């Protein structure tokens, strides 16, 4: 198979967004003159209360942890619907997955606070719970996308149900599953920022502080960080999908 000429690293938007992210995170303290010029009216134009880099890593950590939990549980739950016992729970899973598209993530965050209080814990719980829904949707959609002639052939050839799941259903469900994980992670990055309102120390903190103190510069800095992080994550998944497609199945379907 002929390979397309390798694109130069510098043309890669993922590289640019990660570079911009790190630059902003670590270079913020040095950008005083820039922001002072942009916001002449503000006495403190640069957010220095917490090192932006620390916030970034905490934010990333929170998202990664909750996503790991969410992906594991949701994938297992979704795959379980293919078994004999799990089939009865399929309508419930489908309802839950659909709810993920109507429910605003803030709602779960808000409801977690009365239950467990302020801080990182409600954020983790809310992110994990809400993060499960797109992954569940992706898993179910992926499993449903396996063409029934393929399933029939697999059964007729004498493959055991577990073999069919591992060798046929999971590889073919992978693209839609990955799309679900991608949505989950990117949305969680946003929700983790909002979690600053409930006491979590994430990149939303400069935004919240800026909003309450009428400091537009803080808000801008925080917003840029969150935005760049989300874009970088999305691009990373894009790249992952491309890389996996090149190596693996040629039946990968495009997600518009």
């Amino acid at each position, binding site marked *: 198979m002929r390979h397309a000429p390798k694109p130069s690293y510098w043309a890669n938007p993922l590289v640019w967004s990660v570079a911009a992210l790190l630059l902003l995170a670590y270079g913020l303290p040095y950008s005083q003159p820039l922001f002072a010029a942009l916001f002449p009216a503000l006495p403190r134009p640069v957010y220095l209360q917490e090192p932006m880099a620390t916030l970034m890593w905490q934010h990333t950590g929170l998202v990664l942890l909750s996503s790991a939990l969410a992906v594991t549980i949701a994938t297992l739950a979704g795959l379980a619907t293919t078994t004999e016992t799990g089939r009865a729970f399929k309508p419930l899973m489908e309802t839950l997955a659909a709810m993920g598209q109507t429910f605003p993530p803030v709602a779960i965050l808000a409801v977690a606070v009365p239950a467990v209080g302020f801080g990182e814990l409600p954020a983790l719980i809310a992110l994990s719970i809400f993060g499960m829904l797109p992954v569940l949707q992706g898993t179910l959609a992926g499993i449903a996308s396996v063409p029934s002639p393929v399933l029939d052939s697999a059964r007729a050839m*004498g493959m055991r149900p577990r073999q069919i799941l591992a060798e046929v259903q999971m590889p073919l469900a992978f693209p839609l599953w990955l799309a679900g994980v991608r949505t989950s992670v990117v949305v969680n990055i946003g929700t983790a920022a909002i979690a600053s309102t409930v006491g979590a120390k994430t990149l939303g903190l400069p935004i919240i502080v800026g909003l309450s103190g009428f400091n537009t510069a803080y808000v801008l800095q925080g917003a840029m960080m969150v935005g760049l992080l989300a874009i970088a994550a999305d691009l990373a998944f894009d790249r992952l999908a491309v890389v996996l497609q090149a190596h693996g199945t040629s039946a990968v379907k495009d997600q518009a």
Partner: protein
Amino acid sequence: MIRFEHTRKLYDGAAAIRELNLDIQQGELLVLLGPSGSGKSTVLKMVNRMVSHDGGHIFFNGQDINSFNVQDLRRRMGYAIQSVGLFPHRTVAQNIATVPKLLGWDAHRVQARVYELLKLLALDPEPYASRYPHQLSGGQQQRVGVARAMAADPDVLLMDEPFGALDPVTRAALQLTLKTIHRATGKTILFVTHDIDEALLLATRIVLLNQGRIAQVGTPLELLQQPANDFVADFLGRADLGLKQLSLRTIAPHIQAIEGTEPIHAIAHTATLREAISQMAALHVSTLCVTDAAGTLLGQVRAADLLENQHA
């Protein structure tokens, strides 16, 4: 080899298959023929337990199929369907190798078998083995499907309208390939179709089903010459029964020595009666020379002899 005894199948209370009694011999190509809804696919699927039967028994090599472990049973039967169902994420070679790998064959044996089957199905192993299904045409995909069904040298091949979705040219080619394979390997094949001509071409025996019951069982010629009832006659194309019979016999027994002037046009000695009559009608003649493969003159055939079934 496969025996149905008083087999019944119900769907939502309505009988899809009623009182089926059928004995399938080893080595025959049995075609299950019938209109839509006659239950022919259901009968096929009952053999490898893709569909469970509700009454009576089905025996495979003398043993009740319900006594087998279902996966072991299915690994001894090849299954080819109209929509093929190749694994899109695996290459042609990997697809074909599926059941052999399930049975634990070693890599060498698997590879050899894959290549052997690809050649048998007229697909050049070198480029095709590493291609993916979406890179193949419909006809090629079905060839791979048949190869996959035959991979582990199963006792019986189950085929559910495998050529139904193909264009007439590809379909004809595949029918011929299947007929050749059947003659060469002597495999027992259970073939479902609603196409009469396909059935007449391929079958050693035909089972004509109507609404879950057997209307008639017999060789193609038996069905054409002695249809058991109106349904059979109508299904086989009442007005064409005679012509269809002609396509089942060759002109060889009717070749005579040439008397008088030699006919101008010639026909191969392997032609069917139907082809000969058709040639004569097209050329507005009533006699034809018969030549063999090398071109040597063997004799002549006359229209009257062919129609009145007079032998030389």
